């Protein structure tokens, strides 16, 4: 994703959470941090590498989640 909408994060370090799972700490240039399971990183990536971060809407998953919640709302509150 090139151009003005590109977003990069540095893999700052890899930590372990309380259950022993490896956690990647991604650091954005404005200082915000994102912690996520290291297994979700692209293969071959590691500390001090820059990741290009891209977002895309997932209409199918959005609809599935919204429908699941709507079903629960209907079961609980009617309508």
């Amino acid at each position: 994703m090139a151009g003005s909408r590109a977003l990069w994060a540095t893999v700052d370090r890899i930590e372990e959470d309380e259950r022993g799972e490896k956690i990647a700490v991604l650091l954005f240039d404005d200082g915000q941090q994102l912690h996520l399971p290291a297994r979700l990183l692209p293969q071959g990536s590691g500390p001090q590498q820059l990741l290009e971060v891209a977002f895309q809407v997932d209409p199918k998953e959005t609809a599935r989640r919204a429908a699941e919640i709507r079903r629960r709302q209907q079961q609980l509150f009617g309508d």
Partner: protein
Amino acid sequence: MRRGNPNRIALSLLLLAVVAAVVAAWFLVADSVRRSGAIPGDTSALLTVLDVGQADSIFVRTPAGRTMLVDAGNERADAEKVILPFLARQGVAKLDYLVLTHPDQDHVGGMPALLDGIPVGAFVDSVQPGITNQAYNQALQRVQSKGITPIKARRGKAELDLGTGVQLQILEPEDPLLTAGSSVANENGVVVRVTYGSVSALLAADIGKEGEERLLAHNENIRSQILKVGHHGSETSSSNEFLAAVNPEVGLISVGAGNSYGLPKTQTLQRLQRRNVATYRTDQNGIISVRIDGRAYTVSTERQGEKRDGR
């Protein structure tokens, strides 16, 4: 064999029934006191804004020992490390009502953990369409599996019983829900007004311009000495018109220290200041408690030793 006097037997049975009723009533009251943590003889109501950072969680306990929590912070840790320990310190073993103003993460994030950590009588929800928040999904799942009573919050249609002497009004949302605004979920949030005696507190959730305008359109008395300031002190909340209608003496702002949104906004603080509203902030004051005795109120804070009396 002697036969008893029928009148004496009837009297004895009546006496026995009265004693049984008194004992049962005593156990019910004792159970209510034990569950709510209310101190026997304490006739004050308590409203506490918990310090959950850039999020909301407000606890209410009435003189009758009824309890209500409005929102549950941003994440699991808020429930586990702040809200549940606070409730335990207060001796609260059950929440009568858990109110979710709207399903944004800074209000619903701690709810699954909270529902795992304490029994809840009823779950009060704005029931908005198109929601995908997973914490909300998990909260609904727990409400279902635990058999908690679901209550759809709608203006004038849902009744919450906070016990004798305390009135709770659900002022918003109302059908049809708003479909426009900077944040539809915020504008359709649950706004409640709690009144004990001559003292009222209005909890404005995260409503902004559209929500405030809709509320003001009813042209009703919403004057409240205590205002939980809307949307963490956002500029688009607490308009001059809204503040004029509420006419608060005290403004309570739940906000995280050094939050990246710059809340509360200077303009909002100035609007409150111009109306001589004494403002308390969780980022500066920590936990903020208001004790209401039905005629007057006292504000006390965890940090900076703040205390203010009013009536």
